[in-house]
């Protein structure tokens, strides 16, 4: 959407906001500053975004949420650190922290970034006259950040590729699957059993997006699929050896070689992604576990390179090969019918669909040993 004018970013709805629950709270109680008709005086000590400290602001009334939110991926961005620390070495962490602060930390999200304003990383500005949105508007919050891959796939922005059936047919938004519990750092509604916030806060924090319980999961709504009661032979044949997306997603985005630096001209941080392209490739599941038992999953190339951070120093990722560059993916472009569902041999014997060694850059072969498929499934004789 078009960027907001400066006044538009801070215009409060004078009719509705005072009538709302949050409108009963004095402005200075959250934003500090002081009452004065003079703008500069009023803004001395102003806290424009009070929820940068969730416990001291929103947590006064919503302590159950803020107690666990501080450990959520939206708050910690721990997913980045999990891969950075795995590929790096302890002696490089200080430099990488500087890099992270310059290029990655702006993606941190707190309460106000979804419920009051657009995320700061896309320019900020009140969503709806300072009214608090219990369910954040999808395209102004979720896909404003998660736009280049998930948003474009889900909304059908790639030419010739339909959007996700859940959006096209069901008009479902992100929160219809990704509940507030999950987005607040309580995957799978942990507090349904762990009812007090103290216990919920003691649960292990997620260290990447696919950590722990798989949630959301397709089977929550499509239960008949997993119980073999939907009459689809392929669901019974394949059981849990394929993730749902192997058959029901279509071409999605992969990226190569993001490099970051500080501009000599402006002094601003910037990045450059070497390539972005559409792929559909099935690989071995690098995260196979009880929650994600699949043998095969779609894999997406992430824009990491061994030289991604070389602006900050040489060889900052000495353990680059410790993680694949083709990663477990859950493309958000689900369709009932896809090229893979047409016949058994749409996949069986079709080498083009599988991540074989010849499709991996020679410098990344070692990193991707856990996902590369060495033997393409044999074709199946069709009647």
């Amino acid at each position: 959407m078009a960027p907001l004018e400066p006044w538009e970013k801070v215009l409060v709805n004078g009719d509705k906001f005072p009538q709302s629950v949050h409108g009963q709270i004095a402005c200075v109680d959250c934003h500090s500053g002081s009452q004065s008709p003079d703008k500069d005086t009023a803004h001395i000590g102003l806290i424009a975004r009070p929820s940068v400290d969730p416990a001291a602001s929103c947590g006064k009334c919503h302590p159950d949420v803020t107690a666990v939110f501080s450990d959520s991926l939206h708050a910690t961005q721990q997913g980045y650190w999990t891969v950075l620390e795995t590929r790096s070495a302890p002696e490089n962490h200080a430099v990488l922290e500087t890099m992270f602060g310059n290029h990655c930390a702006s993606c941190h999200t707190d309460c106000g970034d979804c419920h009051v304003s657009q995320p700061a990383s896309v320019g900020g500005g009140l969503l709806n006259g300072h009214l608090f949105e219990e369910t954040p508007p999808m395209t102004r919050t979720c896909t404003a950040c998660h736009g280049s891959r998930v948003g474009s796939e889900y909304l059908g922005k790639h030419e010739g590729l339909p959007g996700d059936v859940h959006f096209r047919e069901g008009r479902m938004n992100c929160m219809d699957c990704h509940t507030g519990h999950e987005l607040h750092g309580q995957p799978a509604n942990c507090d349904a059993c762990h009812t007090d916030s103290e216990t919920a806060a003691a649960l292990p924090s997620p260290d990447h997006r696919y950590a722990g319980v798989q949630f959301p999961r397709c089977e929550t709504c499509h239960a008949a699929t997993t119980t073999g009661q939907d009459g689809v032979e392929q669901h019974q044949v394949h059981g849990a050896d394929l993730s749902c997306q192997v058959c029901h997603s279509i071409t999605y985005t992969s990226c190569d070689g993001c490099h970051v630096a500080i501009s000599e001209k402006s002094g601003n941080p910037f990045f450059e992604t070497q390539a972005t392209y559409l792929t559909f490739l099935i690989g071995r599941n690098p995260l196979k576990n009880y929650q994600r038992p699949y043998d095969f999953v779609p894999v997406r190339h992430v824009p990491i390179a061994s030289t991604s951070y070389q602006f900050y120093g040489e060889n900052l990722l000495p353990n680059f090969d410790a993680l694949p560059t083709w990663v477990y993916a859950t493309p958000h472009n689900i369709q009932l019918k896809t090229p893979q569902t047409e016949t058994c041999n749409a996949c069986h014997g079709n080498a083009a669909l599988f991540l074989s060694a010849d499709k991996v850059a020679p410098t990344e072969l070692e990193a991707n040993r856990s996902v590369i498929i060495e033997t393409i499934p044999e074709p199946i004789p069709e009647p």
Partner: protein
Amino acid sequence: MTKGKTLFLSSLLLLLLTSCANADISGPISQPVVFAAEVEMTPAPKPLPTETLVEAEPDDCRACHTDKQQLIDTAKPEEPTTESESKGVG
């Protein structure tokens, strides 16, 4: 004399008992007596509280931030935004 007196008293007692036995007890039970002292002890209903009209304190924050024109007038001139030097998708 004593015998006649005894007979008279016995007849009188019998008459009284017979009268009591025929008394109609199906009527409404009389209400307990309410003593004046008890009535006075019942607290009289207090008058309903009426809204206290407190003059709202002037709220400079809201006065400004709900006034589009004032926000436009007092906005700091925007610094020219440098075009992002990033290339490709993030």
